[in-house]
Each structure stands twice: as C-alpha cells, then as structure tokens.
C-alpha cells in the first residue's frame, strides 16, 4: 500500500509505468527472471483502457506469488495453489474488474493444479501468468511438476523419475480458450503475450519460461539466449508459416499429423510446404504443444490457440437477468413466506 495514497487517478490511457510500481522493495534474488516479467507487465498495463482501481492481481505461494506486492493495484497474496479459486470469486463478484493471476509451476500445477484446470475449463475471464522455472525456488530447490526427467535436485539426488507436465498441453486439455508460451528474456514477445491475454475474452493461460538463476540456472538457455534462440525457437504467428533459423531457412512441415523440420532453401521443400499457423484450430494446437517431445524440433513460442466461447461470468449474469425479467427483482417477504402459510390468531 502506498504511504501517500493518490487522491486522484489518471484517466484510462493516461496511466504510466509509475502508476503500477508499488512502494515495496522487490525481494527476488538479483538476476531472477521475475524482474523482467514484472517490468513488462508494468510497461504494458498502462496501455489497457481500464481505470487503475479496476486491476486486481491474485497469487498463491512461491517466488512468483510475491508479484502482487510489487504492483500498485489491488492485490491478494493468497494461500498455496488457490489463486485461481480466489480470483474466480473476485471476478464473479465483480465482472468489471480486470483480474490477473501470478503463479508458478509448483503453485499452479502441483498443489493448485486442480483449481487451474477447472478455472480454465469454465472460461472465467481471468488472465494467468504462469512463471515456469522447473524448480521450487522459495523452498530452496526441490523438483517441480515441470522438472525434467533425470534432473538432480535437493529432493531427487538420484534424478527425477516423475514424468513432467507440459503446461501448454495441460491448459489445452483443460479447454482453455487462450494458451500461449513466452519467455522472460524476450521482453517484446512477453509484452505482446500480456497484451493478447488482456484482449482475450475468457481465461488466458500464458506460460513464461523464467530462469531461476539460483536453483535451476540455464534451464531454458537453449531457447532464451541470443546465440541459440533462432535455431531452437519457432514463433507462432496467426496465418504465417512456421519458419525459423537465423536465415529463416527452416520450417515445420506436417508429415500426416507428425511435425518435422525441413529446409526451404535446399530445393526439395518450399515455403508453400510449411505449416501455416491457425490460432483458431485447437487440433493444430495439440500438435504444436506435443512438439516438445521431439528434441529435434524447435520450441514453439506464441499463441497456440485463441478460441471464442462465452465466459462463465456472462452466462451467470444472463441467468440472473433472465430470472429478474421473468420474476422481477426478488421480493424477500414473498421468499420467506414460501408457498404454504397459515395464520394463528
């Protein structure tokens, strides 16, 4: 909370990055990927046409869940894993609010996995930023549900034997209407994904590859560092072919339902053979999400799917409106009276 609260709020569209910086000292480890995520969100939020008091950030427990303290908006730092449930209550009570959930791979996919999938399937208009660093940071280095097989951590000295979740696949399976992947080290792309989440009508799930430089340093370097990114990442753009590589000479070709890497400059394949991204195709989204299982394929970044489905809160509002138009505003005395009364003199 600000020590000297503002008495006036700038009009929507006139807010600046400063309006979203709280007076609290940021306590993440120096070099943590969380700093970039916070900065991009603070940069992008002023673009959205809400009054400042309409933003709410909800989190659970973990490094990522400190996020709300550093944004000067309404915020709830909840309990481990329950942010989607708390946020659902906030949004359903007041659908005009712009509700964001900050969570991690442990908070959002392990202890809170159940709440996450149910919030997504209901399509409540809440935006989820899932900071995936494939490790438990706040508890100092145990493996998480996204840690790699064989990964040696404090609680797996002989290597992880849990098969990991693919967060994007999980969100798609749960019926999420917007699913995207981005990374802490690509500010422009991260900003764009935050914008896409904001614009989306319904639940949005953004997986953010986030480096934990203390307990799992370099987990995503192959995808995030300048030297290797071009060869290992394919950006998803609606209506555009899936080309990648420094020279944009490689692309994804579908052999049946199986994606493979082909070269478009060597003659056998041309750009016309390359898979064209379609955000509205959920079947394609599953294929793209599954590319992670083949180490020879680049890692897709961007919006996997963007579908339109009515949100939970608008259907709830419609049911209430319909009941009111049929029966009028509830008459409490009539309700208490019920159908069958008798008088005793």
């Amino acid at each position, binding site marked *: 909370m600000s020590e000297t609260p503002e008495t*006036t709020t700038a009009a929507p569209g006139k807010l600046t990055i400063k309006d979203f910086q709280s007076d609290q000292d940021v306590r993440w480890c120096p070099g943590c990927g969380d700093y970039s995520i916070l900065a991009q969100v603070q940069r992008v939020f002023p673009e959205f046409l809400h009054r400042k*008091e309409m933003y709410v950030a909800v989190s659970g427990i973990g490094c990522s869940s400190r996020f709300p*303290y550093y944004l000067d908006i309404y915020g709830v730092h909840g309990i481990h894993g*329950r942010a989607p449930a*708390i946020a659902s*209550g906030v949004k359903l009570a007041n659908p005009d609010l712009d509700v964001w959930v900050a969570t991690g791979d442990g908070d959002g996919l392990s202890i809170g996995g159940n709440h996450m999938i149910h919030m997504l399937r209901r399509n409540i208009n809440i935006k989820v930023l899932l900071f995936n660093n494939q490790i438990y940071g706040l508890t100092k280095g145990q493996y998480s549900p996204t840690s790699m097989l064989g990964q040696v951590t404090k609680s797996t000295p002989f290597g992880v034997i849990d098969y990991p979740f693919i967060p994007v696949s999980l969100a798609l399976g749960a019926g999420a209407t917007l699913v995207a992947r981005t990374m802490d080290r690509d500010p422009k792309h991260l900003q764009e994904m935050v914008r896409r989440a904001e614009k989306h009508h319904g639940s949005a799930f953004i997986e953010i590859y986030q480096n934990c430089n203390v307990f799992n340093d370099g987990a995503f370097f192959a995808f995030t560092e300048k030297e290797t990114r071009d060869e290992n990442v394919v950006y998803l753009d609606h209506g555009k072919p899936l080309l990648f590589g420094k020279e944009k000479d490689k692309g994804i070709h579908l052999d049946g339902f199986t994606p493979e890497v082909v070269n478009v400059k060597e003659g056998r394949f041309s750009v016309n053979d390359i898979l064209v991204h379609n955000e509205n195709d959920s079947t394609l989204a599953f294929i793209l999400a599954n590319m992670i299982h083949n180490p020879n394929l680049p890692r897709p970044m961007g919006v996997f799917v963007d579908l339109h489905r009515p949100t939970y809160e608008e259907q709830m509002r419609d049911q209430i409106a319909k009941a009111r138009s049929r029966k009028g505003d*509830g008459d409490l*005395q009539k309700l208490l009276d019920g159908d069958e009364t008798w008088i*005793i003199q």
Partner: protein
Amino acid sequence: MAKELKTLEDVTIRFAGDSGDGMQLTGTQFTITAAALGNDLSTLPDYPAEIRAPAGTTYGVSGFQIRFGSTDILTPGDICDVLVAMNPAALVTNLRLLREGGTIIVNEDAFSDKNLKLAGLESNPLENGSLSRYLVHRVAISKLTSNALAEMNLTTRFVDKTKNFFALGLMYWMYNRPLDQSIRFIQEKFSTKDPQVGEANLRVLRAGYNYGDTTEIFTTRYEVKAAKLPPGKYRNIMGNVATALGLVAAAKKAGLDLFLGSYPITPASDILHELSRFKEFGVKTFQAEDEIAAICSAIGASYAGALGATTTSGPGLALKSEALGLAIMLELPLVVVNVQRGGPSTGLPTKTEQADLLQAMYGRNGEAPLCVVAAATPADCFAMVYEASRIAVKFMTPVICLTDGYLGNGAEPWIIPDVNNLPEIPVRFASDPKTFQAYARDEKTLARPWAIPGTPGLEHRIGGLEKDHVTGNISYDPDNHDLMVKTRARKVELIADDIPLQTIEGDEKGDLLVVGWGSTYGSIKSAVANARAHGRSVSQVHLKYISPFPRNLGEILNNFKRVLVPEINNGQLIHLLRSRYLIPAEGFNVIRGLPLPADEIEERIEEFFGGNHV
C-alpha cells in the same frame, strides 16, 4: 359401524419402507397437513447413504418420523406410537423405535419368502407371534392399491409406485385429517405434466382413506387438536431451507450480493440447491471443484465486496481449514455453515452428530480465533445464519454457523419474520484515500476497513503473511506479530458486546444447570421440564453463541451447584466450559448418529438427585 373418536395430545408416527417406496414424500405430505391443521410438530427424515440400495434389503430402508400435537412439540419423538412398515426390512429395522404396545400397520403383501429372506428373517413375524406386544394391522396395501387402479390399465410397476398414497390415505383417516392438502399437491404436481399419474395417485389416496372408514379392523380414530402456538403467520420449514433463506435475507438487508461457493456434500447440499434457485435475488452460486475452491472463491467474492459464504459438512470444514486461516488474516467477512454429520473421516454421512465444535473452534494452524454460533432448531437456522452474517460484516471476520443433519433435514412450524423487523446490517465500504490504512481499526469493534477493488486511490495488497498493524504491509517485526495475534483474538472477544446476554429457562439459581448447544435443544428442554415437574431444582441454558460466549455465562454457571452438559459427541462444549470457567461440569454423551433422546437425558438428571424418580 360407528367408530370411536379419541383425542390425543400428541402422536409420533414413523413411515418406513424401501428407498423407492416414497416414504419421504409420504411423511412430508402428512407434515403439511398437520401444519395446516395448526398442530405443533417436529419431523426427522432418516434415510440411508445408499441412493437406491437393492429393494427389500435392510440397508435400503428409508424412514420419516413425525411428531405432532396440540401441545408444544420439542422433538420428533424418541420412540414412535405408530409404525407404518411397507416391507419386512422396514419392520425389522424400525421395530426398536416403536413403543411397547404401539401400533404397527404393515403391507402384508410385501411379506413374501424372498423379502423375508432379504430382511434376514427365518420366519414371518406376522405369523410367528413375535409381534404379540404390539397392535398389528395387516393390510394388503399392494393388492388394495392394485384394485383401486384396476380400470386404469396401468403397468404393475407403476401401480406399485403409488401404494405409499394408500398408506397416507389410511393414516389421514386414522388421525381424522382432511385430504385437501394432498389432493391439491397431487393436482398441482401432475395436472398438466401427467394427468394420468395424478388421477392414479388421487384414487389410491382416497382408497386408503375409505379403507379405514369401511373396514371393520379399525375401530378407533384419533383426533389431535390444534396447538396453542403464538399468533402469527406460519409456514413449515426445514433447517437447510431456513439457512438458505437466512443468507439471502442477510445479504438483501446489507445491500450486498450473496455469493455462495460450495461443493456438494451430505447433508449440506440442499442449501446449495435452494440458493441456486434464487437468481432473481442476484444470488450467485458457484459449485466449485472442491471444498477448498469453494471457500477460496467465497473469500475472493468477499474481497470484491459481496457477502461471501460457503456451506459444508465436517470433512469439508477440515479441507477449508487453511483458507479459514487466510480469511482470519485478511479480516474479511465470511459465513461458513457446517451442517455436522457423524465423523470422523467419512463417518456416518446421513446421520447427525455434534462432534465438529472443537474443529470449528480450533481446527486451524496458528492462533486463529473466529466467531462460532449454533442453531438450536430447524427454524433457528434462519436466525443464526443471519446473525453469523451480521457479525461477519460488522467485525470483518469469518463466522462459522454450526447446524447438523438433524436440524438441516428436520422441519418445524416457523413464525415468518417481517422483513422490516430484521436487524439492520449496515455496510460501509472505505472510500477516502487520504485517511485509508488497510489495517487501521474501528475503536469499538476493532474491525478493519472493507476496501473493495474499484475504489479509486485505495489500491492495496493484503495476504496471508503477517501484516503491519496499520498499513497492512508485510511485517516480520516480532512485537508487531505479538500485537496482531492478540488483536485478532481481542476482536473476536469484543463480539460479546454485540450479542444478547444468555437467557435461562427455569430458575436463575439452583441445584443443577443443564447446558447444551445445537440440535439437542428440544430434547434437553423436555427432559428439564419433566424433571422440574417432579420438583427437581433444574434449569436449562442453551448456547447459541459459543465463540465468544455471552458475557453473563460465567455468572449463570456459578449460580448452580452442579452443571450437566449433554452433547452428541464425546465431550466438547464441556471442555470449553471447564477451561474457561474452571467449573467441574459433568458430561452426558451419546453418539449414535441420532438425536439425543429426552428420556435418557431425564434419567441422567435424575441420577444427580439420587435417582429416586417419582
């Protein structure tokens, strides 16, 4: 043949049959008619956990007990005067609840070899003399029902489904009740949807009534006159319905939207069902993915300015523990209803118990005090959940309202309150950024301001980490934590200034005080009344506010030589009384999953006086 008409003060009837025999409907119909005749009454459904256990088995038996009378009816009756048994299993499982010399009405057609075997009987009790202590009426209910519908050309299966109305009609005749209420019910329910079904049910109902009138085996009819109830407009109400209405009324009175986050659980689900119908009141019901999400969504809704509520039963309350702690830290209004059932673990889901009191009081990590109230009768669920809501909003705290399966499913006549006379629930959201501090407190109540998102200039963060006592920012300061722990406790204690003083039924001083809480009210009241009629110096205190206790409770307890605490648990309230007031209270604990029988409490009371019952 002229039939004798005898007047009775009160009667307890138990309808028992297969789960598919429609005994709950039969009982409910009899109840509505009794209520309309002005009887005081109390009912208790007793149904199995199995939805539809195999027909004819003992574990598939469903019962419904109603006690009605011309006097003050306090309980649904420890034992019944009349048992209506639709098959051998129903007879076997309910016989122990019938008084010596009581009346049995059986469907003799159901006593086939197969059904006897399913009920675990080696010979037919209707023929082997084992029922000689009772007055047994063997009625060919199935055959008579079939005869009544002979011209309608219906399937056997369908005909069989209407036989409960024959039993109902017969009981209407026996207790001199008009058929109007049930005729109206049948007509309203089936006239447009399925007139043939309606017609069949009407014929069978009348056939049952006429059978009593014409057959010679029934020589006596009984009459139970209207009770002298306080004047007013009445309806019959079940506890769970009363709870739902109480929440709607409180929200409406407070000018807030009601948000219910809930997960289905026996015996609390009916509250969710009821509230999900009241859309025109703006009620938002959210069937969450689990108990934790249910309470967390209610906390979120409360944070956003709604009246957040969650309803559950014991195992669900266990799952909500951590989130309750969060609500205590966030200091937001929250109403938690626990319709207690038999425990521990899954326990006895459809049976009643009072064993969650200490869970409600203490079942959380850390020092996590909150307000606990408890309803005493089905209709009282309305008043107490309303109180829970009022206190939650005024003191910015979670409040647990305890009811139980017996209250939730039980029913009684209720004087409908005038909405204009319900206590006010003023709500003031914080709005001034110049003075706002998230944890600055009201001097009188220690409540912090309710600052809801959407209010310009009040953007702030709150969470489960310990907070600075003024700003609400995270604080690890040792003295601040000490202060906050004590302040949260003090705030709950201050609620005692806002609740009524404890009342006593009976003299203010004496030999013995019987202290109870929750659904044992009626049993204790009738036991104490009987003991007093025998000249015993006994009084009753029934607690509706348990955390905090009413201010004058200690004084009351000290005015009695001894204190008896009957509970349907192994001794929970007694712990609270002993530790708080340092008195050697004695317990009376019966934990059968059933209401505490008044006569057993009375026996226990008599033990205090040497046991020489008059």
